[in-house]
């Protein structure tokens, strides 16, 4: 069996299931390239989920009721059952989406494609520590990321920045152009200060989604870009009942709060009006050389090593620019390069990757995600909650804390107890790690005191904790 087989299944894929290595071994590179078309249908669990606009409308109504009650209640506190009702509904949506995500990953025959979905979802990270994001973040991944991972980056970028989840997360629905119709009216009326721009989304698009922090933009570009995208909002009435136009829960361009006029970003003037101005800026950002470099570096770090070879990064960036930002062209260059195949187990798995690969090792699709949620909370990678728009880090240095390792070992032990002695640990090791399982490790697993201990040793082995 080829070492490339192990690399394809475990570093490019989500971890081998028993039997997978034999299939991949026929031609590891073709096995990856064939997946770029994606599955003919979206995975069943994900297909069954509602659209984010439906969820958003329903949960916003619940939140409005809560607020209404709070206002009318004598003690200023909403009734407990109303708060609990929102919490219960929100938790239900979150668990449905998380279950679908991890069930799809555990059972996927397209694990490279699935990994790309997770990669880009983390690139465009949303953190659910703000309501009502727990109810729509999984849907954001499915609606804005999943259909676009093998296409043009610009299409994914536009889908992401127009998705209500991203607009909510980075406050853009509240950003108001100082010379917009609404601001002028408000200023005439009472000179109120509650009208102005919010730079949050504009800054993170430049810093984290496209050019990268050293990509050559200035504070002035941030402020101007924030003005360009004023009005990028969500349809239907907002929480305070201020606006009503547009299709509820979907992207809506609100001309009334858009800062009018031509604007200059990165030295280029944009004369478009309305929503097309922001779209034009995003399309230019998508094919900017800094974006190519930034994305190429992140991809190479994810698929090759924490410190990716500079030459490979350049090759990927060139493939990106020459194809006009076609991601499949970049993946093809990556897979056909020599660098990814030089060494096995170059990457320390994140907790997320570790948990998914464990499920796949046992060929087990969890019924729901409760166990996964607990596990990842414990290991420091709470699902969809990186805490910032930068997303989760991607190097061993950042994941390799002593405590993080100990939590994994404890979790391995718990999983091993659940699985018990249903499988032979050493044979399972051969099936999922192939020739990369070291003979000493295999010996140690085979000589374990019990099946439970043997499985714990396999899962906690350096070979299985890396990809």
């Amino acid at each position: 069996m080829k070492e490339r087989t192990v690399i394809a299944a475990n570093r490019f894929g989500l971890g081998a299931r028993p039997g997978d290595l034999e299939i991949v071994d026929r031609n590891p590179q073709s096995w990856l390239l064939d997946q770029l078309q994606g599955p003919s249908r979206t995975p069943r669990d994900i297909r069954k989920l509602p659209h984010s606009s439906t969820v958003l409308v329903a949960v916003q109504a619940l939140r409005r009721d809560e607020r209404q009650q709070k206002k009318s209640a004598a003690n200023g506190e909403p009734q407990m059952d109303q708060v609990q009702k929102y919490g219960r509904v929100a938790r239900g949506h979150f668990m449905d989406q998380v279950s679908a995500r991890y069930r799809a990953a555990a059972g996927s025959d397209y694990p490279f494609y699935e990994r790309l979905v997770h990669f880009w979802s983390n690139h465009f990270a949303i953190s659910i520590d703000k309501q009502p994001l727990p109810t729509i973040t999984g849907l954001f991944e499915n609606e804005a990321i999943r259909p676009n991972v093998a296409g043009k980056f610009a299409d994914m970028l536009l889908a992401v920045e127009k998705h209500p989840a991203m607009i909510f997360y980075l406050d853009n629905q509240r950003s108001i152009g100082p010379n917009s119709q609404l601001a002028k009216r408000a200023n005439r009326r009472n000179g109120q200060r509650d009208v102005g721009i919010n730079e949050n989304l504009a800054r993170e698009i430049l810093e984290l989604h496209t050019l990268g922090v050293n990509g050559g933009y200035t504070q002035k570009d941030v402020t101007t870009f924030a003005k360009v995208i004023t009005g990028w909002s969500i349809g239907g009435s907002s929480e305070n009942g201020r606006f009503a136009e547009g299709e509820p829960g979907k992207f809506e361009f609100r001309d009334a709060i858009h800062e009018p006029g031509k604007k200059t970003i990165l030295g280029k003037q944009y004369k478009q009006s309305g929503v097309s101005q922001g779209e034009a800026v995003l399309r230019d950002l998508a094919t900017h050389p800094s974006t190519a470099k930034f994305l190429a570096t992140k991809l190479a770090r994810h698929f090759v090593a924490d410190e990716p070879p500079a030459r490979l990064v350049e090759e990927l960036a060139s493939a990106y620019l020459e194809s006009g930002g076609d991601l499949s062209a970049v993946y093809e260059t990556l897979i056909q390069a020599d660098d990814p195949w030089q060494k096995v187990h170059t990457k320390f798995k994140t907790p997320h990757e570790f948990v998914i690969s464990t499920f796949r090792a046992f060929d087990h699709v969890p019924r729901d995600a409760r166990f996964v949620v607990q596990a990842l909370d414990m290991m420091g990678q709470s699902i969809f909650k990186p805490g910032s728009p930068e997303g989760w880090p991607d190097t061993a240095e950042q994941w390799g804390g002593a405590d993080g390792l100990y939590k994994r070992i404890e979790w391995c032990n718990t999983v091993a107890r659940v699985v018990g002695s249903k499988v032979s640990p050493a044979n399972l090791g051969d099936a999922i790690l192939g020739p990369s399982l070291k003979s000493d490790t295999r010996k140690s697993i085979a000589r374990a005191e019990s099946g439970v201990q043997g499985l714990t040793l396999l899962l906690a082995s350096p070979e299985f904790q890396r990809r």
Partner: protein
Amino acid sequence: MVTRRDIIRSAGAGAIAAALPSFVFAKTESTSRFVLVILRGAADGMSIAAPYGDSDYPRIRGDLALSPPGQDGGALKLDGMFGLHPSLAGVFEEYEKNQALVVHAIASPYRERSHFDGQDVLENGGANAGLLRDGWLNRALGPPGSSLGNESAIAMAVNTPLVLRGENEVTSWAPSQLPDAEESTIRRLQDLYADDEFFATRLAQAIKSQEIADGEQSMDRMRRRSRDAKQVKNMMLATSRFLTADGGPQIAVVETGGWDTHQNQGNATGALANRLAGLDAGLVALRDGLGSTWSDTVVAVVTEFGRTAHVNGTRGTDHGTATAAILLGGAVNGGRVVADWPGLGKSDLYEGRDLTPTADTRGMFKGILADHLAVPGSVLENSVFPNSADAPQMRDLIRA
């Protein structure tokens, strides 16, 4: 010479307790303790310590301004110019005992406005993001034989933050709810990891930390207003336990998030006030947990940068530049505000929008490391904060 690897190997043969002497935490001669608290997300220095004596302050901060001392919900009077946020009552108590001080208009050398690069510079101790891949506090730990021994520091987190990453071994700990793996399984893993340095050192550290932390769960029961506040408080209680353990670490790093107040920041009450109250309760818990050790402790509360002087369009503030830092502890030469106040007039502001920095975090850290932890000046200048002549050591932060 017995290496770490030998010790870990030998652990496979013996009982686990006997195999884990104090090699994880080198016994330190000094009794000084240092806790670095990082507020991630850019905490608003003008809310932590409000410049109520600056006539531009009420104008520029509008609804977000704190009332002057003495008024309902007013700031707690530090001096004629500055007042502490009313949520920081515990810190104020220490201030009145001359055991806390505020350094105002302080910033790292970073002058852009990205959280992640800002935190990178705050923690790497260099002048730019990405320049140094290890942290200043880690570099201050070595070399072995200097006043701070190896493995005398702990990150109170599942993953070690940059400020503590580097060549010198540190450990980390965070609470767990999982049942322990059996002793024999751990022993076999130590054998399995023997040839893999990455795994071997981390497992050894984790085991030792787990022992020290035992008994921590029982304090977990107290009901708090918010879960976040409870987490900060529990983390601080655990920190005090580590810092007072026999042969335990001398230095701890604690992180807390949620300071990025782009909207509805509030003033004496509201989102930021709640955050600050949680922080304050945590600092009080740390003080109480440290007991008599508090008298030789310095706690530094810092953040990556400040926020805009003006209020933004959503009753919050955007990313800015200078902010405030708090030092507290029995070893702090407190009861005063250290500030060369730049003013809030239009021409006073950095790029017309942010509080202008007049102090450098590196200078403050140098002052703590030199006068509290006895790190030699040459080490500070050459390796801990290279090329930092523009940030001279701040004097008299520590009680003589």
